[in-house]
């Protein structure tokens, strides 16, 4: 199977969405032979301005793909090739243009997936060691998420990190470093008018 290129001449945004969903349907059976996207072809993506809904759909589709990719080695391998060639990071770059909240939620989905195997291993549903292809994919995702968070605009860095870590924290216990990073991300530097009292008696007021 060959994944079609983005047809030239499509008018954004609806036709892009149609192309996207059509591509998704073709990839979905997962007998993948990923089409190699050239730099030129990828650059054609950038000519399309997509709606938030379309990009959200795209991201949900990718996440669903990743979830299913965790179920067997063949799919994992297919996914690994596919992300390597299209580039999840590129998709997230698109998402970044339309809203950081969606971006971070999607990143957290990927982190959740990467942690999923470990959870299954803990209850001995799967072997502790990841299948080689899946392990490679997890590293691949971790790297991409790290790249993603590093590339996020510094102005929003703390907001994004807080949102991401709080979302991850609902799925699993944060590591010590993550806990420190979260505390730092939500910390406030508000100016002080009067030094807050350390005494509880001053807070409640006396009679």
């Amino acid at each position, binding site marked *: 199977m060959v994944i079609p290129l983005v047809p030239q001449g499509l008018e954004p945004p609806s036709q892009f969405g149609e192309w996207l969903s059509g591509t998704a349907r073709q990839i979905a059976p997962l007998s993948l032979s990923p089409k190699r996207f050239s730099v030129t072809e990828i650059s054609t993506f950038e000519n399309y301005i997509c709606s938030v809904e379309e990009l959200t759909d795209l991201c949900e589709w990718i996440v669903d793909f990743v979830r299913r990719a965790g179920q067997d080695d063949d799919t994992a391998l297919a996914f690994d090739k596919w992300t390597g060639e299209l580039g999840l990071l590129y998709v997230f770059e698109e998402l970044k243009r339309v809203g950081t909240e969606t971006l971070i939620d999607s990143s957290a989905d990927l982190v959740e997936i990467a942690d999923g195997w470990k959870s299954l291993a803990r209850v001995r549903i799967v072997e502790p060691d990841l299948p080689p292809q899946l392990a490679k994919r997890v590293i691949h995702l971790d790297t991409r998420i790290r790249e993603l968070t590093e590339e996020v605009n510094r102005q929003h860095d703390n907001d994004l990190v*807080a949102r991401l*870590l*709080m979302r991850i*924290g609902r799925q699993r216990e*944060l590591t*010590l470093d993550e*806990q*420190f990073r*979260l*505390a730092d991300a*939500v*910390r*406030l*530097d*508000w*100016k*002080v*008018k*009067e*030094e*807050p*009292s*350390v*005494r*509880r*008696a001053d*807070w*409640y007021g*006396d*009679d």
Partner: protein
Amino acid sequence: MAARVFVDANVLLRFYFSEPGHHRECTALLEKLKGKGVELWISGQVIREFYVQATRTQYFPDPNNIDDIIRIVEALPLFFHIVDESREARELLPSLLLKYQVRKLLTHDANHLAMMLANDIDIICTLDSNFEDFSDRVNILSPLAEDARKSEDSG
């Protein structure tokens, strides 16, 4: 069982706000305890007291956004263990009120003590000297004393 330390609201406020005095000492101590595997505990009462202080214009005068404070409150369970007020703590409180002849505002401190003892916690990290009244039942860990000790060690 890992060592447990109860964190008072005055330390919590200085951990999450960088401008009040002793922010550095409070942050250093909590991070050091965390790094050593000590469990840091707070209670619903501590959270409410933290929120009351954080929203006081007497302390923070600018028209700030309470969303930022609420986000801290939401993040608390990811850094601290939170003890719920149990029946055991409620039943313990009267005996503590009687023993220490507690009146008026010290009742709030006594309630903290009841929560701590009901959960096998006998160390409180605080800047409030009022807890010295309960020093036969609780050990006080002051971020300032810790800082002073460190200075002495390095000197």
